[in-house]
């Protein structure tokens, strides 16, 4: 039973190892869990889960393996679903006839009742043993994630004891992998991009050198100092702005503010859709205050790391042909300019806020993917992580 539990956890991609399994056995041997199911749940959770992102997966597996372990009377479906989704769902699942019946029978209460039954039926058809609606992407809600403002169905408040088993509450839903990409998270990802070097004023005691010099000095103390270590990575960020990028403005803002506090040598410029001969720093004065791309290539030395941020979604002509720009007449194609940047800067990546699975449908994304020699990454935490690894190479 426990072996199954362990194996299923591994299958659900909760990183558990034999060491932890043995620790759990040891814990039970020592009677930490006190023979109560709740305590066993807490104990196994403390031992087997090492990251809050995995707590929800753990809860799901636990619920599945130990289903019916502690039968709670009258236990129905306990899920938190916002009302509007339920209404939508009701529309989907209930036939016209049923809807009319419901209306005749009287309103929302009845609707919920029917819906609950329907959901129960539907559950049984789900694969992968996911217990509740909304898990493992098999349910109609999967894409929407968790909403705290939910209504509960199948839960009677007046019942004695707890209505829902602890693990079935799935309180950690919102800590699951779809971590919002917040400034803090971005900063952590950006920290991968650090290269420490000693530069500037000498403020730290250099122990090995002090000892060496003192020894050479026949025992007379000679103190040697070194400069402090500092991050010397230089970063050049080029943001696509306006048009189709408006939808991604928040995540770009977050990326920008995180990057700004993380790097000392940070330069940024804006472009629209594709990189051409001009860039600008202030979007309000974009037609007045421009900076030529050629100058950019000369101004910032090749040890700058270049980060393009853009959805790369446009007509392929805007990239491939002179005069393809939607805003002005460009003498040289965007392709040429991007190629120049790629030739100048060895470390270059493209971050794309468009979800990766949509990339193959947009020819311009593929084109730019090629131009950046497959160094395009989605603007998610994972993508950012891989992008930073790429830049560090």
């Amino acid at each position: 039973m426990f072996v199954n539990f362990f194996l299923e956890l591994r299958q659900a991609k909760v990183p558990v190892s034999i060491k932890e399994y043995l620790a759990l056995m040891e814990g039970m041997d020592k009677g930490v869990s006190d023979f109560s199911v709740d305590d066993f749940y807490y104990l196994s959770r403390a031992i087997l889960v090492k990251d809050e992102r995995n707590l929800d997966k753990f809860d799901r597996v636990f619920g599945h393996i130990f289903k019916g372990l502690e039968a709670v009377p009258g236990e129905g479906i306990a899920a938190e679903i916002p009302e509007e989704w339920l209404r939508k769902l009701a529309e989907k699942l209930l036939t016209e006839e049923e809807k009319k019946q419901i209306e005749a029978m009287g309103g929302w209460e009845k609707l919920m009742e029917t819906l609950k039954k329907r959901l129960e039926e539907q559950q049984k058809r789900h694969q992968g043993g996911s217990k509740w609606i909304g898990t493992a992407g098999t349910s109609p809600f999967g894409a929407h994630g968790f909403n705290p403002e939910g209504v509960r169905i199948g839960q009677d408040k007046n019942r004695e004891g707890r209505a829902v088993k602890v693990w079935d509450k799935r309180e950690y839903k919102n800590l699951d992998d779809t971590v919002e990409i917040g400034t803090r998270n971005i900063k952590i990802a950006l920290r991968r991009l650090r290269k420490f070097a000693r530069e500037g004023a000498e403020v730290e005691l250099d122990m090995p050198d002090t000892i060496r010099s003192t020894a050479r000095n026949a025992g007379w103390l000679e103190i040697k100092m070194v400069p402090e270590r500092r991050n010397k990575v230089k970063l050049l960020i080029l943001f696509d702005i306006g048009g189709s990028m408006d939808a991604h403005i928040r995540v770009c803002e977050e990326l920008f503010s995180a990057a700004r506090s993380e790097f000392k040598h940070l330069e940024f410029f804006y472009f629209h859709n594709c990189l051409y001969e001009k860039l600008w720093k202030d979007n309000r004065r974009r037609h007045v205050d421009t900076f030529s791309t050629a100058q950019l290539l000369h101004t910032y030395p090749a040890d700058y790391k270049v980060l393009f941020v853009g959805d790369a979604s446009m007509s392929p002509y805007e990239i491939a042909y002179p005069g393809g720009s939607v805003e002005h007449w460009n003498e040289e194609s965007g392709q040429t300019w991007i190629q120049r940047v790629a030739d100048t800067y060895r470390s270059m990546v493209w971050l794309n806020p468009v979800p990766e699975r949509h990339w193959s449908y947009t020819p311009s994304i593929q084109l730019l993917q090629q131009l950046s020699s497959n160094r395009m990454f989605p603007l998610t935490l994972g993508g950012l992580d891989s992008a930073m690894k790429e830049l560090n190479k």
Partner: protein
Amino acid sequence: MKFTGTDSYVASDDLRVAVNAAIALQRPLLIKGEPGTGKTVLAHEVAKALKAPIIEWHIKSTTKAQQGLYEYDAVSRLRDSQLGDERVKDIANYIKKGKLWEGFTHPERPVLLIDEIDKADIEFPNDLLLELDRMEFYVYETQQVIKAEQRPIVMITSNNEKELPDAFLRRCFFHYIRFPDRETMTQIVDVHFPDLQRNLLREALNVFYDIREVPGLKKKPSTSELLDWLKLLMVEDMSPDALRSKDSKQLIPPLHGALLKNEQDVHLFERLAFMARREQRQ
């Protein structure tokens, strides 16, 4: 040795089990959670409950794992050698014990708090693997092995600024302190301010959870901020009505400085409150 919470710390069931597991199985307990949910305080309370001494090791970005074991003060030895000090003959005089050493050799079983481990360099946790696993280390200068006679209760807190390496996590138990719900929060406040007026508390909690609900706050107020704010409210002798007042002049709660910690948040809150008022009036 069992931890059941103390009269000044409300521990949820899951936290209790996690702490007891860590004590019984002698593994380090890694605690994560929003800032201000009582991660560091937990270690103090565990020490208090078990009547064990507490040894605190606060980690900074410059902290090295070696510093927790011991440091060899070569410079003062060099200086002493020039001054002809007798102590210079014994290298042990210049070995400074670190917090782990202290913890390992303490006559009683202590609680060892390694606070904010995520602040240290990325390699820091890896450098402590063996030491935390076997609870022993080797002092090269004096060629002795320091071994814990009784394994200290190790508590490690993290604010999630860095991912910890898997090998390190394998050796720890883990607990994520969730943000307390209203019921637990009432208990927590009771523990800290037993003579707070009921209705003031209710209003204050309303305001507090409302603020936490505001979308887009840079830093949501947490338990410790709530406690500070309540303390202020009590000092100022604020009446529950003042909190409830829907007076349009006063858009944000009194003494909000304790809850909202940056001007963007205050600004955002003011704007939202203003909009809410306007809607109400229409």
